[in-house]
């Protein structure tokens, strides 16, 4: 991994975790919407 520091967070890992968490959160929310409205 590059030594370049990312903006805002201390490491790139935090950014990657954020991207994956947002993706998973959307999957869960969409799943709940699908179940609730069908």
């Amino acid at each position, binding site marked *: 991994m590059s030594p370049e520091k990312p903006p805002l967070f201390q490491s790139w890992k935090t950014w990657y975790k*954020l*991207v*994956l968490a*947002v993706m998973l959160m959307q*999957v869960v929310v*969409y*799943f709940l919407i699908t179940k609730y409205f069908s």
Partner: protein
Amino acid sequence: MSTLDWLVLLGSLTFIVLYGTWKSRGSKNVESYLKGDQQLKWWMIGVSIMATQASAVTFLSTPGQAIEDGMRFVQFYFGLPLAMVIISVTILPIYYRLKVYTAYEYLETRFDLKTRTLAAILFLILRGLSAGITLFAPSLVLSTLLGWNIFFTTLLIGILVIVYTVSGGSQAVSITQRYQMTVILSGMALAGIMAFTLLPGDISFLDSVRVAGELGKLNMVTTDFQWSDRYNIWSGLLASTFLFLSYFGTDQSQVARYLGGKSLTESRMGLIFNGLLKIPMQFLILFIGVLVFVFYLFNQPPVFHNQVLLTQAKQAQTGQEINLLENEFSKAYEEKQTAVLRLVKGIHESNRAVIGTAKKQYFESKLKEDRIKKRTRDAIAMAMPGAKTQDRDYIFLNFVLHYLPHGVIGLILAVMFSAAMSSMSSELSALASTTTVDVYKRIVKADATATNYLVSSKWFTVLWALLAMGFAMLASFAENLIQFVNIVGSLFYGTILGIFLVAFYIKRVKSNAVFWAAIVAESVVLGCYFYFYEEIAFLYYNIIGCGVVVLLSAVFQTLSRTNEGI
């Protein structure tokens, strides 16, 4: 089209083209022409990546996809954030370290010239065809609905793109994409708001969402697995990840976008920006389609959305039959509307029994409608042999032209043109870069001057634009445009990704092994397409192609007697 619509359309397009040409007028050497000045900040890279991926097909076809099939298409994008992370961690630092112009240069460093050339040629075929579809989609729909000649529409978009792409290269592409994206997002947001405001006064936003949900349009996550099912959570998380890894990691039209970044950090943040925003953007476009679906529950839709073709068919021998079908369709629609009003009543009263009865009545009348639509398509096909009788791509624009106010119509048309131009310019720039760097400079003329390469790049841009325009004028076969674009991509991306994965991660595999594995893999994928099209959904071609390259290259390498090859 009123004068106001023309002013909005031509004003926005002229501004973008002239501004892009003027702002990038300093691109005087081949490096800045092909890579830009590498001064792009992360948000510019993110916008550029999104604008490249979102072509006119996205905005024409996706709302229609939601109307017919619900929102489950959103699952196709679930693998994208994962792909962004993998590319940021693995592929991006390698491209930066090697200071490459194109992704395929790396393959010669790792393997040899023939593997680099193979990947470059696969890309040129894939992207050349896609550029044709990128141009064909809006040309066909706009020319049909507006009554323009398709040659005129194709020429108009093609020439506008040539003007700034040839003049300013990669830098002009990035600059214009910012304004194109502004037009696109504001236009689509306005269309969504307008679709909602056109609903009957007693239907609230929540009512419309609940009606859409009860009628199966909010099917955003489907968990049943079938190899033949194109869009479910499994194909979205697994197969799409492979597709997006290949598209963003090895397709020069995207690689060039983030290699134009000011630094590795800016490029990484651009990819992260895309990973965070892409799914919500697609969600919103699909949701606009759902709102249009609800609108057509309370307002009678036409029996066939390509009105121009319908009118032409009526003037032919089957005209009488189509008139009768329209009458039948009106009756079926009245039944359906009664069911929908009952459904709304049931929702207001939270009465599951009423909701259940209303849904049953709705689906019965929907079945009648579908049968009438099928007979109408058959009648049109009989009256006009060879005509494209799939009208899904016309639903959204037909709605815009008939129900939205003047000014907004011009803006939505500007959205379609902007999206077509933003994708096409990236594609042409990438095609020209790859042709110049990987073919012309490496194989044809290695000792030419920098000026010669710059002039050649410009001529290659024009040549690819002309070829794309030729493809666009010939193409008329796609059942659904957005799916066709993804099918073409899936035919080649798996193999290309497999070559790159072997290059990155299986160090013991040498050039001959990966080269022949790629040839076999591409044959297997094409075999799947021609012989198992119904059995295997196209997204899985990405896994198959990639998997065959990785496995066979390891096997071939093991079988080879020396490290030099099989």
